[in-house]
């Protein structure tokens, strides 16, 4: 064009890689560029997410009516469905999702760095993740049938089942190492790679949340690794640890499992809170309310989150004294969580709100995550948890947190950062329609579960008494609307890769550093040296109170 020479030719990370040849499959598979690794994670995870969603839809379909519903699904197959749905969603998507995709892509950008501290270790983490994922998929086709232990692998039931459960456990073990190494990499990166002038309290809140998350990954994940090793030692060497037939204690397994898996909930949710904080400030076009309170509440959630695992075990017969302590500590997690929510809604006060698709997801996050958090209260309280434990109320609660919260934040983040990652704009109208379908479908799918749980419907039931049928049917209808919303979103993203409008560098007028570079960024992220002089959400035209 005639303008050649006016704007300098810009080389993106798609055109320049870390390997000899800048393009081609090998340049991706061997790339140590954090951005390419982030996109590889995204691609893999969307695939696993699609599998797990399909399983979820099949579960809902089977539960449409009381009695066997689908002709090819018996109890055994149904039990595998919910096991695989849980294993894939938790271990392959929700736990590693936000840190591995957006953490990898945006942490160095938000810090003004060229890459993470250990780029090669980062690539190794990716291959550990893929190895774990392949093991998990192999477990589906093992002789003796797919794993049917539930994603929690509770003993002694998991000892009785076929080799598939061992394979799935091994997958979780390998995935754990991927998580530990990613966490280690992020902690080091945040300590060592911040741009000139960026103190800890000048870091964006997404980065803060990754910092808290990374510490949990490093410190809590080894517990699950040790636990799974003990399971293998018990199964193959007959060392009695958890199996009552060998003199072990099945409740000890639950302690160790939740000692990891409860903090893992915060590995999932903290980065989601971080993404939401960033998007909120951007689309409110004002500085965030209570920056330090939000940043430090992430850290306090991370710390207290270690000490609350016992609330999964009030019905197991643990001593009443320890149950009381766990209950009290659990309530203390509610306080910093509530604090975040109040700061977010306060950010909307006197703002200038633009309801773009990412902002819609942000608001839905606050709404749904608040419901998820508040329905955690009767589960933290002692006598009410006895009633609700292992019922549909718990299913409703954690899907409101994990899907309504974390996955909605993930989708919001994908819309928010899509222009930066791919250099194209998505279609706004399709984005909004897809959001509305997902929002309506989600709430119709999961809200009835609270009512089912209060009426006593236990979870992991292939079949149920007729009195629960109408609420189950309502929930299944919701799953269809949600599925339509997900399909439209997938179409929007895939189509816009080629046909979307070219994205400007800063389409949303964001203030954090990733908007300071080109879309998509060059290999080393910035063309200039970065010196930070202002807070992450300070606006140039700012007029403070």
């Amino acid at each position, binding site marked *: 064009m005639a303008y050649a020479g006016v704007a300098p030719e810009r080389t993106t990370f798609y055109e320049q890689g870390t390997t000899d040849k800048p393009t081609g499959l090998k340049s991706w598979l061997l790339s140590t560029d954090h951005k390419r690794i982030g996109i590889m994670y995204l691609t893999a995870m969307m695939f696993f997410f699609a599998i797990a969603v399909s399983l979820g839809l099949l579960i809902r379909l089977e539960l449409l009516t009381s009695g066997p519903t689908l002709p090819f699904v018996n109890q055994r197959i149904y*039990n595998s469905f919910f096991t695989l749905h849980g294993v894939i969603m938790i271990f392959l998507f929700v736990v590693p999702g936000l840190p591995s995709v957006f953490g990898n892509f945006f942490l160095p950008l938000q810090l003004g760095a060229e890459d993470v501290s250990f780029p090669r270790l980062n690539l190794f983490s990716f291959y550990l993740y893929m190895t774990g994922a392949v093991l998990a998929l192999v477990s589906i086709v093992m002789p003796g049938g797919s794993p*049917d232990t*539930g994603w929690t692998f*509770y003993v*002694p*039931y998991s000892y*009785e089942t076929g080799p598939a459960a061992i394979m799935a456990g091994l997958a979780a073990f390998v995935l754990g190492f991927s998580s530990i190494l990613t966490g280690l990499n992020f902690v080091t990166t945040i300590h060592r790679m911040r741009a000139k002038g960026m103190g800890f309290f000048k870091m964006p809140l997404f980065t803060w949340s990754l910092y808290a998350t990374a510490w949990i990954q490093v410190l809590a994940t080894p517990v699950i690794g040790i636990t799974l090793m003990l399971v293998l030692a018990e199964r193959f060497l007959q060392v009695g640890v958890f199996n009552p037939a060998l003199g072990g*204690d*099945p*409740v000890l397994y639950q302690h160790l499992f939740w000692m990891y898996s409860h903090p893992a909930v915060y590995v999932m949710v903290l980065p989601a809170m971080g993404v939401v904080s960033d998007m909120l400030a951007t689309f*409110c*076009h*004002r*500085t965030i*309310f*209570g*920056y*330090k*309170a939000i940043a430090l509440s992430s850290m306090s959630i991370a710390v207290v989150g270690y000490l609350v695992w016992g609330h999964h075990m009030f*019905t*197991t*017969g643990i001593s*009443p004294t320890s149950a*009381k302590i766990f*209950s*009290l500590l659990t*309530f*203390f997690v509610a*306080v910093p969580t509530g*604090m975040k*929510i109040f700061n977010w*809604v306060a950010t*909307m006060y*006197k*703002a*200038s*709100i*633009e309801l773009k698709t990412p902002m819609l997801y942000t*608001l839905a996050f606050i709404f749904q995550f608040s*419901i998820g958090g*508040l*329905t955690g*209260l009767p589960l*933290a309280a*002692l*006598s*009410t948890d*006895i*009633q609700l434990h*292992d*019922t549909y109320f718990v299913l409703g609660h954690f899907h409101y947190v994990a899907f309504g919260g974390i996955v909605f934040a993930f989708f919001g983040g994908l819309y928010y950062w899509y222009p930066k990652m791919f250099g194209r704009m998505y279609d706004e109208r399709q984005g909004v329609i897809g959001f509305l379908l997902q929002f309506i479908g989600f709430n119709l799918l999961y809200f009835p579960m609270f009512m089912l749980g209060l*009426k*006593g419907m*236990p979870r*992991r039931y*292939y*079949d149920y008494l007729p009195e629960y049928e109408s609420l189950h049917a309502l929930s299944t209808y919701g799953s269809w609307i949600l599925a339509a919303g997900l399909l439209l979103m997938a179409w929007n993203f895939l189509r816009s890769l080629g046909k979307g409008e070219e994205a400007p560098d800063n389409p949303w007028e964001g203030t954090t550093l990733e908007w300071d570079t080109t879309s998509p960024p060059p290999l080393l992220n910035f063309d200039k040296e970065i010196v930070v002089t202002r807070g992450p959400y300070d*606006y140039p035209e700012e*007029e403070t*109170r």
Partner: protein
Amino acid sequence: MFSGVSTFAPEIDSAMAFILWWSAILMIGITAFMVYCMVRYSRKNNPKPTHIHGSVALETIWTVLPTILVLIMFYKAFGTFELMTTRPDDAMKVKVTGLKWRWVFEYENGKKADELVVPVNQAVELELHSPDVLHSFYVPAFRIKKDVVPGKDNWTWFEASEKGNYNVFCAEYCGNDHSYMLSTVRVVDSGEYSTWLNTKSEVLSGPDLLAAKGCIACHSLDGSSLVGPTFQGIFGKMETVVTDGEERQQRVDEDYLRKSILEPAVDLVKGYANQMPSQAGLLTDEELDAIIETIKELKE
């Protein structure tokens, strides 16, 4: 929710109501404020934002007030928990066995039944045992739930305040027929209870008996192979069994059937996993004889 019929149910329900009402109030407040801001401070209505960085007073308020609120919630549920974990001295005892996939209730006089029959207004203590995997004894109407853990002596108690029939569920996932591990609590007046307790239970026969004892969840009657070998034509057949890791031939006769029911792990039919819980102590002698008779009759 539906009405609870145990003595502590009203207190649990009041704690539940307190927590859920406060949650609803907070939820409505947060949502209303968000919707208000979405409209009042939209880009159109408020093109120029005000940058408020924070407020120590507000941060203090929304840290302190929620802390007080959750402490009250904790306290309310704490009181009822004390009640649930303190068994009264005058409770009558029933031994409950949860196994894949049924419940067996055994009374102090030795009577065994598939349903739990108790007198109204009488404290009942349940001693929970499992010979196989984890189960959980759950009666929604009584608001009680306790895991049944192999190798651990768990217990729970209740006092039913109204006559009627109430569902018993297994709440801890235990394998294939988890969702069919159901029973009933029948709360009757004390006269009816003592009559029931001192009447010998009627022994079922034929396929009804096999269904009631949970056999057919794993052993088919039509020749198809499930978790365990089919019963069809099994009597009199030569089977390859594994004893202490050694394979040997065994004719399926009455003694072998009896041993397989009471000690299923000892002579395992080749090709099947060791999954069946021992039925020792869970069947009366009459029931055991009747099961063996029924299997004998199941010819091809």
